[in-house]
């Protein structure tokens, strides 16, 4: 036993069962980089893009592991496994699985397939898993950095392209800056509460009784943490990077970027504001309301003018974050987490579906601009119909699942008294129908460009139509979805871990 850290090994062996999925992701990512990529791959003469298969397998295993991880608090109360953590972990892993699926060569994704690409996805996913369970400002900060560093590289992956470099650089600079702000905020809070704790539960109690002369310290600390997190989810006015980054990143990474890091960051959001700063909600409610309203308005209004579908989806994802922040605002943190989780789950499916269509068209050189969708109803009926379903679902038109997510989160927000914000949300979602229908208009009402059309391969067809079917009939499974959301909860008792089966309770 090393003497510099007494009890470290006991601690680790006692708590290690909470982080098996994370370890699996990390270790297999490392193994992939070395020695497998240098030794095993040349030996088996497999092509690089075959790395997708083990990556997928590892992600699926970690998905199952994370669902069956027992609940509990570990690592000196810095990491917690509960319904909330598990729920968002599932979303992150699902998003990563989708990203790997979308990166496939058959789909024509413009990605250079190397072991690093997949390993980085695994590392980032592991960072996200830590984010979902982190209950200490320090672990939160570290896990965010773990995720972000991998994403910076992935965003700049098209290194031969100017806009790829630009995207990576922009994301890195702004990301580093915002992390700095957040870290500064954490240290201010640490100081304001007497320099004793960064644990969220304890911080909550300390903040409630902090003396009057420290209130400025607390206020600026909370705001800085808010700014840092808002940057991660690209909420207005900290969204400037997102359209350019989305545009420059490889499209499967864009699809992933719009879902996985956001799911993890929203988990942190819920954790920090639902537990850590819950007692001082009056400090952050007004700024968060402003951010939420501004995201919905600006995201939707700015999307109208976009020429490129990728940018359009980027702006619309800003708006969707605005809707989800309504759940973070909820004074009933538990219910808020449930609504956000449900929305994110549904958004994951419809957004990935829309990106799948986009990636397919890019791969076939049919373009990514909205005009390039002209006549798609004739060229690719299945693709166009799926796209129609995804877009209407994103717009929140029933009976597609997007409506259900909106319905649930808006219902909650009205209950919590944020009626004005809900009115803004609903009106701007009517605006969003306008730009989503712009794409529909091109697909169905415009004549297609001349040229031969390649018939779709079965992989793409299967992928896209499955997603379409899920989105199409999703609302019918409302009861099942609600049962799942029921499990997205904090567990209150710190001690004995009760095994809560996340699926199908």
């Amino acid at each position: 036993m090393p003497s510099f850290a007494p009890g470290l090994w006991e601690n680790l062996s006692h708590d290690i069962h909470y982080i098996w999925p994370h370890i699996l992701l990390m270790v297999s990512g490392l193994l992939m980089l070395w020695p497998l990529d240098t030794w095993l791959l040349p030996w088996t003469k497999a092509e690089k893009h075959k790395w997708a298969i083990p990556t997928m397998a590892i992600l699926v295993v970690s998905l199952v592991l994370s669902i069956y991880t027992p609940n509990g608090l570990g690592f000196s109360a810095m990491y917690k496994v509960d319904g909330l953590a598990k729920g968002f972990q599932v979303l992150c892993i699902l998003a990563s699985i989708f990203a790997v699926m979308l990166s496939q060569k058959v789909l024509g994704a413009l990605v250079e397939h190397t072991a690093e690409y997949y390993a980085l996805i695994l590392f980032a996913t592991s960072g996200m898993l830590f984010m979902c369970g982190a209950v200490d400002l320090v672990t939160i900060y570290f896990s965010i950095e773990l995720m972000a560093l991998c994403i910076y590289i992935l965003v700049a992956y098209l290194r031969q392209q100017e806009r790829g470099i630009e995207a990576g650089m922009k994301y890195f600079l702004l990301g580093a800056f915002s992390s700095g702000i957040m870290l500064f905020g954490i240290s201010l809070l640490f100081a304001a509460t007497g320099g004793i704790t960064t644990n969220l539960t304890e911080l909550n109690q300390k903040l409630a009784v902090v003396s009057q002369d420290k209130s400025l310290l607390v206020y600026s600390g909370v705001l800085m943490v808010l700014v840092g997190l808002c940057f991660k989810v690209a909420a207005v006015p900290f969204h400037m990077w997102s359209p350019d980054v989305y545009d420059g990143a490889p499209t499967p990474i864009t699809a992933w970027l719009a879902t996985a890091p956001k799911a993890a960051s929203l988990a942190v959001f819920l954790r920090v504001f639902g537990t850590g700063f819950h007692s001082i909600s009056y400090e952050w409610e007004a700024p968060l309301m402003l951010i939420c309203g501004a995201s919905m308005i600006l995201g939707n209004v700015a999307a109208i003018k976009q020429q490129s579908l990728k940018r359009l989806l980027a702006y619309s994802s800003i708006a969707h974050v605005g809707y989800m922040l309504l759940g973070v605002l909820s004074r009933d943190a538990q219910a808020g987490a449930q609504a956000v989780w449900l929305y994110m789950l549904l958004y994951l499916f419809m957004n990935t579906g829309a990106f799948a269509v986009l990636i397919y068209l890019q791969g076939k050189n049919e373009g990514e601009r909205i005009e390039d969708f002209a006549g798609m109803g004739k060229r690719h009926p299945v693709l166009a119909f799926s796209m129609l379903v995804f877009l209407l679902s994103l717009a929140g038109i029933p009976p597609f699942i997007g409506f259900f997510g909106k319905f649930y989160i808006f219902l909650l927000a009205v209950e919590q008294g944020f009626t004005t914000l809900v009115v803004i949300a609903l009106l701007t979602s009517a605006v969003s129908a306008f730009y989503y229908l712009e794409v529909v208009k091109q697909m169905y009402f415009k004549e297609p460009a001349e040229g031969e059309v390649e018939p779709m391969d079965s992989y793409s067809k299967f992928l896209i139509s499955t997603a379409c079917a899920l989105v199409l009939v999703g609302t019918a499974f409302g009861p099942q979805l609600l049962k799942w959301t029921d499990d997205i909860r904090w567990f209150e008792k710190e001690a004995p871990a009760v095994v809560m089966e996340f699926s199908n309770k």
Partner: protein
Amino acid sequence: MSGTAQLMLLATFLPILGGLGLLFVPNEKREVFQKATVAIMVASFLLSVPLWFQYNRGSDAVQFAYVCDWMPSLGVKFSVGMDGISLLLWLLTTFTGPIAALCSWGNIEERWKEYYIWLLVLQTSMLGVFITQDMFLFYIFWEVMLVPMYFLIAIWGGPQKLYAAIKLFLYTLSGSVLMLVAIFAIYFLQHKATGQYDFSIASFQSAQTVQLIASQTKTFQILLTLAFFLAFAIKVPMFPFHTWLPDAHVQAPTAGSVILAGILLKMGTYGFVRFLLPIVPEGTKELMPWFLALALIGVVYGALVAMIQKDMKKLVAYSSVSHLGLCMLGIFAMNPWGMKGAMFQMLNHGVSTPGLFLAVGIVYERRHTRMIADYGGLSKTMPIYATIFMLMTMSSIGLPLLNGFIGEATILMGTFQTWPWVAVAATSGIILGAAYMLWMFQRVMFGPISEVNTKMADLNFREIAYFTPLIIVAVWIGLYPKPFMDIMDKPVAKLVMQVQPDFYKAESLAAKQAEAAKVGMHGMEAQEAPETKEHGTAPAEHASEPKAEVSEAHAAPGGGH
């Protein structure tokens, strides 16, 4: 599930199921789509007919009810059923379906597969709106309706189709999202009071909920009322929210116009009757002067604008604004006559206006122009067409013995009781209506005939086939409206009870006094009575006693008219 409920669900969902079946037919088989769609629509209509006979006219309860849990934790149920008001409109929808399908044969020249499937999806979503007894389900059907309509206009419409389609979509969508907030607000208000999460329409309309809303602040009530009002007023459409209508009508293919005029506009008035009045009666009364003014402006303005139109379709579209304004006046009269008249007006408008659109569609198919100036003297070459056009025109302007008269007369009767001067002003709309319709008829049918028009063929068998049911119903309602009256009797009485709990009490009191004095002027006193009623009396205490008086109260004025 009872047999009648099964029949109702089958008739409602048959179109969409048929549409799913048609997905597997290749697009080239135009005839298959045409015939199959008509067959599905006719089957759905035939399935719906028995409910007309099965409906118990002596009860105001929701009949053919079927309820099952959907999302229990939210209080969302799959709850369906109909009362007389919804039954009539539901039957109107199944009745219009085959006509819309049949009239598309000639003018849909491309993409048949998509067209007929969207038509069938639209049919189910419209039927769904009328049978749902749950707010969540209602909202779903209400919104789903927009998507097929958007496609019908945007693909098969006229030159400005894209603009018209997106305008229709956004207008109606922005109206209905506000309604969603209002629904949420009431839902939580209920939950706070009862601890129950319940989305059922019955609980929204229940006396407790209405009482609860009435006990909130005035601002809250007015906002609630406005949220509902906007959603429905856009759909009706009432002045000044009507601007989408002329665009949509003019650009839509004939079947689209038929469905728009026949059914979709009724959604708005149905919404007023089903939701606005029973749920927020106090707020509605608060804003009544404004609503009345808008309805009245609609009547006169719609008629005046219709008069100057050069395009026949646009003329008929503006006539809808005018007619539905009248319908709204009837609803806002908040007495049985006004309400019944409004219901009649909905049915009549659903028969005569589609008829007019079909008639315009026929000449458009032959000459590809809708300008009145391009025609003239058509009665010489197309005598059958002229006769049918004449009948539809007469029905639309409310000639006695045809359906339009019954509605208009009853509405004016009802409105006069509550708002005499409004009724007087509204008469001008009817006079103007006669003017613009007859003027159009005259310019199209009589006068010198130009060279091109002499070659126009008269109606063929298919065209006569889809006019015939419309004419039959028009004459039927005109000559013998009692069966329709019977169906709506009890539900309307219930509605009036919900809106004006004291109405029947006052009216029967007046009737008794009148009888005692042997003076036959009870109507005049009854008209004053509702205005002097007290607000805020618990409806519970009236709940049992006026029921007994309903029949009595009806017997008295009913005999007179």
